[in-house]
């Protein structure tokens, strides 16, 4: 281990190594067991991601404190750019074409939102936090990108952004009773949001409630995914032996449904291992947060941990048919550059935060 890294990072590296190994094996299998093209591209992204992670670590953590608003502004501008001149893939406008690669700003937006909110709350005193007025800006910070992402349309990312924002506001010390009241009223008002959804989103939710409604469309995907996971049994069908994914019964087996592919081939054991690895990573984030000295790094690390777990939970619940299919990638494992890089940056930030703690404590 690089001795510039803090000692406690060993846990993180070990977890991350196992996750990335599973990620590579999963993608290798999902692409038909061939070491070429897309599989190599995924390996390349892992390497680039690790380099970016180290890059983030080497930057002094205080830089992020200063840089947070600028970063948020830049990503927010990109989101507007997507809205105005984005590339359309699969019926959704989510990408900006930067000539040498396409970029999906909604992924780093989760990061930018957490940083911006942490930056905003860090100098506030206990008294200020208890004033509702001081929460106006964070709510705006959250709502504006959520609206833009909903327009793409991307319900999953929007929900995750909103959830991450809420958690940050809750963590900052927002008055408890008011918070509970707002959440409760939101839940009550939620059904009215139905009228603002796109047809395909309505379909997905209806299909989720009644899978038999559309057996050959969305219901088919959920059913095939459940068949694949279930047929994995305890130890799986064996590496490269998953018939559901190999014979194209699975939809999106590389991206949103990568967990299904892995569960089919490695079974209950593999699926629980992946869940435990994510839980370990998340716990590490929380631990670094609780040990951090500055409020900025505390809030950042909590936020990143929550965001990571939300992705994992929504993704695997979705492929098991427990939640509607809303298009949330599984961190590190799903095929896709923007998601990979932004979660690598998360890790880099947490290592940097833990380094800062060490520097201060010694």
């Amino acid at each position, binding site marked *: 281990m690089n001795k510039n890294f803090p000692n406690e990072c060993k846990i993180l590296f070990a977890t991350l190594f196992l996750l990335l190994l599973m990620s590579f094996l999963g993608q290798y299998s999902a692409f038909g067991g061939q070491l070429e093209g897309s599989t190599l591209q995924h390996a390349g992204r892992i390497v680039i991601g690790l380099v970016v992670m180290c890059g983030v670590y080497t930057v002094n953590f205080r830089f992020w404190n200063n840089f947070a608003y600028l970063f948020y502004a830049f990503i927010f501008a990109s989101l507007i750019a997507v809205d105005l001149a984005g590339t359309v893939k699969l019926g959704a406008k989510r990408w900006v074409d930067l000539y040498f690669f396409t970029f999906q700003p909604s992924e780093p937006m989760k990061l930018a939102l957490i940083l911006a909110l942490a930056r905003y709350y860090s100098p506030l005193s206990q008294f200020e936090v*208890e004033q509702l007025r001081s929460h106006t800006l964070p709510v705006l910070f959250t709502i504006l990108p959520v609206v833009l992402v909903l327009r793409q349309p991307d319900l999953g990312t929007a929900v995750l952004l909103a959830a991450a924002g809420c958690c940050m506001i*809750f963590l900052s010390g927002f008055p408890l009773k008011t918070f509970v009241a707002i959440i409760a009223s939101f839940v009550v008002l939620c059904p009215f949001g139905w009228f603002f959804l796109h047809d395909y989103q309505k379909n997905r939710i209806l299909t989720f409630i009644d899978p038999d409604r559309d057996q050959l469309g969305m219901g088919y995907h959920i059913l095939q995914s459940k068949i694949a996971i279930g047929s994995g049994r305890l130890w799986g069908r064996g590496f490269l032996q998953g018939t559901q994914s*190999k*014979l194209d*019964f699975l939809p999106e087996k590389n991206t949103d449904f990568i967990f299904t592919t892995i*569960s089919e081939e490695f079974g209950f054991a593999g699926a629980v291992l992946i869940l435990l690895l994510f839980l370990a990573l998340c716990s590490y984030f929380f631990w670094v*947060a609780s040990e951090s000295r500055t409020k900025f790094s505390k809030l950042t690390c909590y936020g990143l941990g*929550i965001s990571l777990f939300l992705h994992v939970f929504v993704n695997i619940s979705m492929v098991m048919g*427990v939640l509607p299919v809303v298009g949330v990638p599984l961190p590190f494992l799903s095929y896709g550059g923007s998601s990979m890089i932004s979660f690598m940056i998360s890790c880099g930030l947490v290592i940097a935060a833990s380094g800062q703690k060490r520097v201060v404590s010694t």
Partner: protein
Amino acid sequence: MFDQQDRKNDIKFRAKVIFEIILALSTISVINLYRLQISNADKYLLMSNKNRIRLAPIVPRRGRIVTADGEIVATNICQYKLVMERSDAKTFRENMKIIRQCLTISEEDAASLNEARRKKYPFIIVKDRLSWEEYSKLSMVLFKLNGVSITNTYSRNYPVGPEFAHIAGYASGSSRDASIYNGKSGIEHYANEQLRGKFGNIQTEVNATGKRVKIIDSLEPTVGEDIILTIDSRLQKYVYDTLSLERAGAAVVLDLSSGEVLAMVSIPSFDPNLFSQGMTKTQWQEVTGNPMFPLINRAVNCSYPPGSIFKIVVAFAALCEGIISPKDRIYCSGGIKLEDRVFHCWNRAGHGYMNLTDALRFSCDCYFFEISRRLGIDRIVGYAEKLGLGSETGLELPTENSGLLPTRRWKFLHYGTTWKPYETMLAGIGQGALLATPLQLATMLGKIYAGNTDFSPTLIKNQRKNKKFDIKNTLDSRHLTIIKDALRQVCTSGTAARSCNTDYGISGKTGSSQVKKIKSHEVGMSQSRIPWKWRDHALFVGCAPVPNSRYVVAVFVEHGGGGASVAAPIARKIFDWLLLTTPPEKKSQRQDANE
């Protein structure tokens, strides 16, 4: 108070709450995974396999049907068909363009093929039964076609045709898969399981679009067994040709020692190839709409009034029951009066005094009116049952007719009225409601000449090996001798004397059964002047040679006129063929088949 408020707003406390939620959600996820992958794993594994594994049958070659002398009656011939795999509209159009240069396919057929393609069957049959010319033309262009191949299948063929149509029956391709043949009548139906063999299968793995990826497993089929008939093909053809001179009828030849059916013919017949290889609409209408019903096997599937032949049963019953002794005489005045009706003997002038032998010899009705009156219907039916009438003979053919023995109970169930004395008298001469199949009549005579009621006909070789007659079922030989002697005299100086008086010796009984009541103006009218459908049925059953009988022959000519004039000469020809003309090659072939 403040402390607690402070603690609740503390970032650490709130993070702890969130972390607990995270743990709870993780637990829920593990439970969900457990439910999918452990509790319901078997269900999902089954669904997964159902997704990807397709099972296709491999059809075994159907067994042949062969006669005892080695003539093949039913076999399979190889045929080629043009098959196209599932394709998109463009490939289909390009393929069809090339195919239509070689084959003539009408616009309608092309449209229906396109319709089949759209239904996404794994493959469609472009054309069945390719001729050699079509086959060779197509082979030349096959490389230009995409997903098109020529496959061969076996189709059922009956090389001999109508002579064996009722015995072998026919098999036709199932509607789901034309290469799977199912027997629909005759031996094809009766021995369908044996002939079909055991299906093999091939398990293939397919992907989500239904395309075949690989073969997982296969099970070889078991070829169907050949069935060897007891029929002698030369005799069968001879009987068929002889009987073909009549409009409709049936003939059965039995081997007395084994019960083997040596020939069984029903006229008119049909070409079974029409059913196995497809026919046009007009051919179908011709076969099914024919007023003579060629599909029916008249020897087995139809029953007729046996007429005077039934007198053998009544005479035997009377002797056994001691109603009458051979010497007792009864006076025939040409009719008998019962209540206010007169029942005439066929000879209205009367036969005078008749003993049993004479009554059988001249087929005197009055004599049998009297003894059947004395016997009563119950005892007559009892002996008829003993001699195999009124129930299936157990021949290896489907839908055998059991004939009809009228009883008091039957009368009551069908007409709701009581049994009348005159009905017993009509039954005594084989008329009234009494019905029997020609095969039953042959079997009845066989039982008498074999001296045992266990005698029964069989159509499949070696089916009854080592089957011995039960001594309990032996018939009383004293009475049989009297009957046999009378039947011998029928052919020397009785009703059949003109046609059946031969050196080797035939014994038998003629029968002419009325199909309608004779009206007064029709008395004594020649049969040829009556419309065909109201003429008498002509029957003859006989046994030869005398004394050591070997063959039983039953001839039935539908509306033939008279048993003595029409049926007996045909039986005579059959006996002549059996006993006088024995082609040397026939003998050797039969020995081969037996070995």
